[in-house]
Structure formats: structure tokens, C-alpha cells
């Protein structure tokens, strides 16, 4: 009997994800490209990329997630100053050291000023690498915003077609929306499972399950997630005496895996987070079968997506939404975990702080850098915080 037919344990699946994430380069994307003609791969800077538009055009959207804590930044430091966040520099460093050579282009978005300038610096330093920049609308109340974004996506589709040599059809786009809906739906179920039974699925396990989607074709990721959901649901576990925490602030630059583990080990069940939020951007399925699926995708960005400090939807108060999220997740506390020098994340904090204090929800503010590798101090801070709540 082949081992492949045996149900896989969550540990085995997570272990496979860990190995894929830690491996330098983009082997799964290269294999996917080589399997058929007219295929390409593009590196997508955080936070959200309309993956469907690329995939429908024969371009695999690969997620860029910085250099982690094993990369030494030797070249990019001279291009971006010390007060710029690490992922800007580590992304450029990856390009300068050939680690992005497997990719056929890179896409940036209007998330913050350093990312905006990085798009220019990247294209100057790599004149042979096509670079795209997507301007997401910031006027969520304008009735013309969905039309504008639809047109922007159409422009991006033309760019994608040049990379792959194949233009997308409406059917291609519907199929792409379908498969990414499946991915997002399963991630939502995994998030719900963790919210309801955090002892069955640790965040240190859920995170790599989502993160590996940065590397894999969506069909393969959907299978892996389905296996993981089955394995986690049927797992046995025992609840521990931990506080329930909603974590926010880490939507772009990513903390090291060991930091996520350290937060949990310090006595927290993370029952919600905004890690890699672009992978599960929508609150529900994007309509697949409309006459104009590009418009549906644009409309979903504006009207059916999760809150994020890079979105600036003025119809709602992000701070109030955070309080509601903490309540709906029955959280004992909130941890605001900001990447050092991340302006969108740091700017969100004062409004969060005010709203959380007014709502009587305890919170802890922490900063991290992707390159950090000592966690004792931060773990100590969290332990003190947890103890202050547990023994209050």
C-alpha cells in the first residue's frame, strides 16, 4: 500500500510546508512553468495581488515574503536608508543576489511610500525584468471606483499576457476565480477551526499552510489545504490554560516562524491574525459566473474584503472593526505586532489603542523585524502580559 493513500497527519503536512518555505528559490513555480508552453511566473510584493488576473493569463503569481532571518543584506542597505523597513531591502537584495532569477517579472502595489519607490528602484536596477505597479483605489465611496479598478486590472492583464505570450479569456478568468475561491474558502475554514478549537490547530501550523500558497500553483495548494483541514478536524487535542488573543499588524513584512511559536509558547492561543492577509483577502467567494468577472473581482476588492491598514476604507473605522473582531473571536486580549519602520502598521496603532482602551480590551504593542533571531526578550514580555491577565 502506497503511503500516499494514507491520510496525512497535520504534522507531516506542516513539515512539508516548512521545507518548501525554507528552500531558497521557486522550484515549484519553475516546475509548473516547464510543464506547458506559454507560462510564466511573477513575484508579487505584499499585501494583496489580484492573483486571478495573472493566473488566468498563464502567469503563476508567486508571493514575495522578504528575506527572513537567514539573509544577510549586503547590497540593498546602500540603496534604502536605515529607517526603511526590512522587507523593502530584503526584496531588493534577493534580486541583487539572483534569488529572484526564476521569476519573469515583479509586481508592486500602492500600499506605502517605500514600496512605491521600490518599484522604481527595482526597475532601474533590473532593466530586463518587467515591473508592474497596481494603483488600488482609495476612494471606496466613489461609485466609479469599481470601474476604475476593473480597467486597472485589464491593463494588468495585458502586462501578464506579454509575460506568458497568452491572453486570458473570460472563461480563463472564471476558472481562476473558481480555484482561488476554493483556496480562500478552505483557509477561512481553517481560520474558523482555529478560532473555535485553537488547541486543534496552532498558528505555528496554520501559518505555513497558508504561506506555502506563495509558492505553489493554486490547485496544489487547494489540495494541501483540504488535506490539512481534514487532518486538523479529526485530530485529538487537549485545551490548555492560555489566553485567547487576536493578533494584528503583521500584514506585510512577516515575522520569523520561531517568533510565532514563541508567542504561542508564552501562553497565547492566537485566534485571529492578519499574517499574509492577501492570501485570504475576501470575506466570501468572489462571484465566478458574472458577465464581467473582472468587474466582479474589482467590486469584491472594494466591498467584500477584510480590513487592512493599506486599504483606507473611510466608510468604516478600522479601530472599531478591530474591537468587533476581538469580541466576535472571544479574545481576552489583542497583540499589535508591527514590523519595525512599517508606517501603515505603526499609524494604525494609536487609533487601535484608543478604541481598545475605551472598550476595556487589554492589549500589548510589540515590534519585530523579519531578520530577528533572538526571541527571549519578546517572549518574556508576552509571558508577563499573559500572567497579568491570567492571575488578575
Amino acid at each position, binding site marked *: 500500500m502506497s503511503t500516499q493513500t494514507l491520510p496525512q497527519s497535520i504534522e507531516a503536512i506542516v513539515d512539508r510546508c516548512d521545507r518548501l518555505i525554507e528552500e531558497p528559490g521557486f522550484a515549484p513555480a519553475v516546475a509548473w512553468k516547464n510543464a506547458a508552453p506559454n507560462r510564466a511566473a511573477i513575484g508579487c510584493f505584499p499585501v494583496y495581488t489580484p492573483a486571478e488576473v495573472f493566473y488566468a493569463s498563464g502567469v503563476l503569481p508567486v508571493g514575495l515574503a522578504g528575506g527572513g532571518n537567514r539573509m544577510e543584506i549586503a547590497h540593498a542597505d546602500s540603496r534604502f536608508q536605515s529607517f526603511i523597513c526590512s522587507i523593502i531591502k530584503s526584496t531588493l537584495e534577493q534580486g541583487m543576489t539572483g534569488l529572484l532569477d526564476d521569476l519573469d517579472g515583479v509586481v508592486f502595489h500602492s500600499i506605502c511610500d517605500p514600496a512605491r519607490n521600490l518599484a522604481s528602484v527595482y526597475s532601474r536596477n533590473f532593466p530586463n525584468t518587467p515591473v508592474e505597479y497596481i494603483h488600488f483605489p*482609495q476612494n471606496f465611496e466613489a461609485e*466609479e471606483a469599481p470601474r*476604475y479598478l476593473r480597467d486597472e486590472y485589464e491593463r494588468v492583464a495585458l502586462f501578464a499576457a506579454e509575460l506568458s505570450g497568452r491572453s486570458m479569456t473570460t472563461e480563463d478568468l472564471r476558472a481562476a476565480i473558481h480555484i482561488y475561491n476554493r483556496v480562500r474558502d478552505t483557509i477561512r475554514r481553517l481560520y474558523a477551526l482555529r478560532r473555535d478549537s485553537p488547541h486543534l490547530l496552532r498558528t505555528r501550523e496554520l501559518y505555513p499552510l497558508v504561506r506555502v500558497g506563495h509558492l505553489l500553483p493554486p490547485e496544489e495548494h487547494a489540495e494541501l489545504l483540504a488535506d490539512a483541514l481534514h487532518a486538523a478536524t479529526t485530530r485529538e487535542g487537549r485545551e490548555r490554560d492560555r489566553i485567547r488573543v487576536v493578533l494584528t499588524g503583521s500584514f506585510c513584512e512577516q515575522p520569523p516562524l520561531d517568533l510565532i511559536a514563541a508567542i504561542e509558547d508564552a501562553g497565547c492561543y492566537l485566534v485571529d491574525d492578519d499574517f499574509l492577509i492577501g492570501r485570504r483577502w475576501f470575506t466570501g467567494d468572489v462571484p465566478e459566473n458574472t458577465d464581467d468577472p473582472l468587474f466582479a473581482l474589482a467590486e469584491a476588492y472594494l466591498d467584500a474584503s477584510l480590513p487592512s491598514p493599506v486599504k483606507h476604507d473611510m466608510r468604516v473605522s478600522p479601530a472599531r472593526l478591530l474591537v468587533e473582531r476581538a469580541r466576535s473571536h472571544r479574545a481576552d486580549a489583542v497583540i499589535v505586532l508591527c514590523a519595525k519602520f512599517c508606517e501603515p502598521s505603526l499609524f494604525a496603532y494609536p487609533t487601535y489603542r484608543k478604541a481598545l482602551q475605551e472598550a476595556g480590551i487589554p492589549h500589548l504593542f510589540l515590534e519585530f523585524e523579519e531578520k530577528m533571531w533572538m526571541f527571549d526578550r519578546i517572549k518574556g514580555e508576552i509571558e508577563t502580559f499573559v500572567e497579568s491577565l491570567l492571575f488578575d
Partner: protein
Amino acid sequence: MTETHYQGKLHHLQKELMSEYYAALTASANGSGVPAAYLLIGGNPVELLRAFDILPVFPEVNALQLAVRKQSLPFIQSAEFMGYSSDNCAYVKADIGMYFGGRQTPFATIPEPSLLLCNYVGCNVYLDWFGHLAEFTGQSAFQLDIPFIRTASGKPSKEDIAYVLRQLHHLIGRCEEITGRKLDEEKLREAVRLSSLTGDLWAKIKHLTKRTPAPYDAYFDSVTMMAPLYCLRGTPQGLEFFETAYAELLAKAEAGVGPLEKERFRYVIEGPPPWPHLRAFRDMFSRWDAVAVASTYSTVGGLWEFGFTHDPDHPLESIARHLLEWNLTNRNFLQRYEQIERYLEEWNANALIIHSVKSCRLFSAGQGDMREYFTKRGVPTLLVESDLEDPRYFSEAQMRNRIDAFFESIAHRPTREGVTA
């Protein structure tokens, strides 16, 4: 000469007009009945507000006025006490601190806004800033979303223009609600006509520094003219100021007079000034007889010197083009390299100074790459770091040493034209 004492008629007129402007703000705060709109400098659509007699309030100008007067730190600290990070833009912190300090400044009482107009022109911090003002005031902000210049042509697409025009119509609707009256199209045309004449004069003033010696410093004296350019553009007083300024500076140019006794170095400067230490910073250049002949900072609100002019026959279209294309902040970083390249060539400069400010990452992120680009092209380039608002990020001795070393080194090497300076 180690200190500059140049104060012309334009400097005195600027002070007078800005006092009147701030008096109007105080009157509005005290219940004059004139509504005020907060908006941002980048490619600002102030003409539209003029058509409704809405007072423009620029939080950036207020913040820098606090910094110049060395009043910004307590406000910054009070914002940091609220949870703002030491790494956040200090303009925002000074403004938020001032807002919660009762909107009292040494130069005016800043009125509560009737309209929060977030003209999002490139700078993402604008969105956070006005989002917070909305959260704190309980008002809804109008987000005027300006698509960033992102295609190879360096131009906005027709879809971008249509998108901005439709939003401008909504903005007109919002102004009509606030003031209770319909748009007076003739009044809008008149404001745009005044802006057009003002912009043309400003462009002519900018071109005067192509002469040797430059009749004024295109950084330290330009900033004096920038406040009227934003706060008074679209008014007869604003036009009058620029007529006076142009006449005075043209006369200086014709007479071969510059801001210093001698002009030894002509440099281009990139980045906003260190407002809390403006005088000390200026003197670091004056002591080397170095004059800025062009500055990128003076184009944040508009790039008139490269050919833009408002069009009274197409007022909204020209406002849209100003927002989209004709200002520094909505242009991409490589367009700024091109802008500097033009200054170096056409304004005949022999060095580039990059003043990297921590607060404004729109300006500063990637300036190391800019330094590398210009250095490789043989342009003597110096990058120095401080801040535009936070007085704590300025090391005077270190800054002076670096500037001294830079001018010392280029004093002894051939320029691009093959002569020593």
C-alpha cells in the same frame, strides 16, 4: 560670509500676506462663518475651494510653521504619548498634537474643518493622516483618489483622467452641501485664471536661476514663495505677490546680483528642508558660497517650470491634470531622477545634495539608489540625513562636517565642464 541676511521685498510681503491668511483662519475658528477645508499640498486643487469661498487649511504648512518657530517638539511628544511611533511622519504627529492641544499655535487658531479633503497625491501617509483626523473629529473625509503615475509613458491614462474628473464632480457636490450654494462656474474659471497667471510667473521665477549668478536661492528662498503659492493661489493677492516677486528677482538677475556676495558652487538639492534648523542648514552652504539653483522640494505642489499651466477654458480638466501629472509627489521615483537630471543640465549645476528626511518616506525611500545613479554619472553627490519636523534628528556638527568635506573635495576636482569651481 557664513551667514545669510538676504531679505527682499518679497520676504516682507510674504510675511504680511501670510499674517492676513492666518488671521482669516483664526477668524474662521472664532466663528466668522467662513468654512474651512483641510487639504494637502501635493498637486492641491485649491481653485475648487476658491470657487466656493472655502478657506484652504494646509496641515503641512501649519506643521512646518511650528517647526520653523521651534514649537513642534511638545506637539510631537504629545502625539507620541497617544501611541504614535517615533518612526511615524512628524508632520502628522505635530498636527495631531496641535489638534488635541486646542488648535492653538503661535501664529493662528486653526479652525475645525467643514471639509476634510484628502487629495491623495502619491503620499500614502496623507491617507492615514486624514483617516485619523476623520476618526478624531467624527467627520467623514472626502478621499480624492489620484492614480499614481505608473506606466512607461510617464503620463496618466485616459481612464485615470476620467476617474479623477468624476470624483471632482462629487467633490463639487460635497462643497455645494457645505456652503448651501451651487457651483458658480464663472468664479471657478476666475480662480483658475488667477492660478494660471500665478503659475506662469512662478515658472518664470524658477527659470531665473539658470542665470549666473542665480538671483535667489532656489531652495531657501523658494520655500518663502511656496506658502503663498499654496495658501493664496487662485486669489488676486496671490497673483500680486508673484508679480512683486518676479519683478524683484528679475531686477536682481538683470543687475547680476545673487543672494550671496559671491557664487562659487551651483547645486541642485533634493528633499524637504530641515525646518527646525533651517537657518543653521542654510549657513552651512553659504559659508562655501554655494547656491541652490534648483530644488525638487519646491515642486511638491506643482511642476510649473516644466510647462504646466492651468487652463481657465477647461478648469476641471486642468485641475485634474495638475493633480495627476504636474506635481512631484504623484510622479514615480525615476521621474524624479529625470527632473534632477534636467536641473543639472539646464540650470547648469555642478553638484547634487540629497537631504534625506526620516519623516517623509515618499521623498526619501531609495535615495541611496539615487545617490548611486548620479555618482556613477559623474555628478558629485552628497547624501545627508535629518528630519523636516522633528528637531531631535539633527546633528549640527556632523552635518556641517559632511557638507564641509563635500565642498572641500569638489573645490579641487574638475566639474563636468572641465573647470574647477
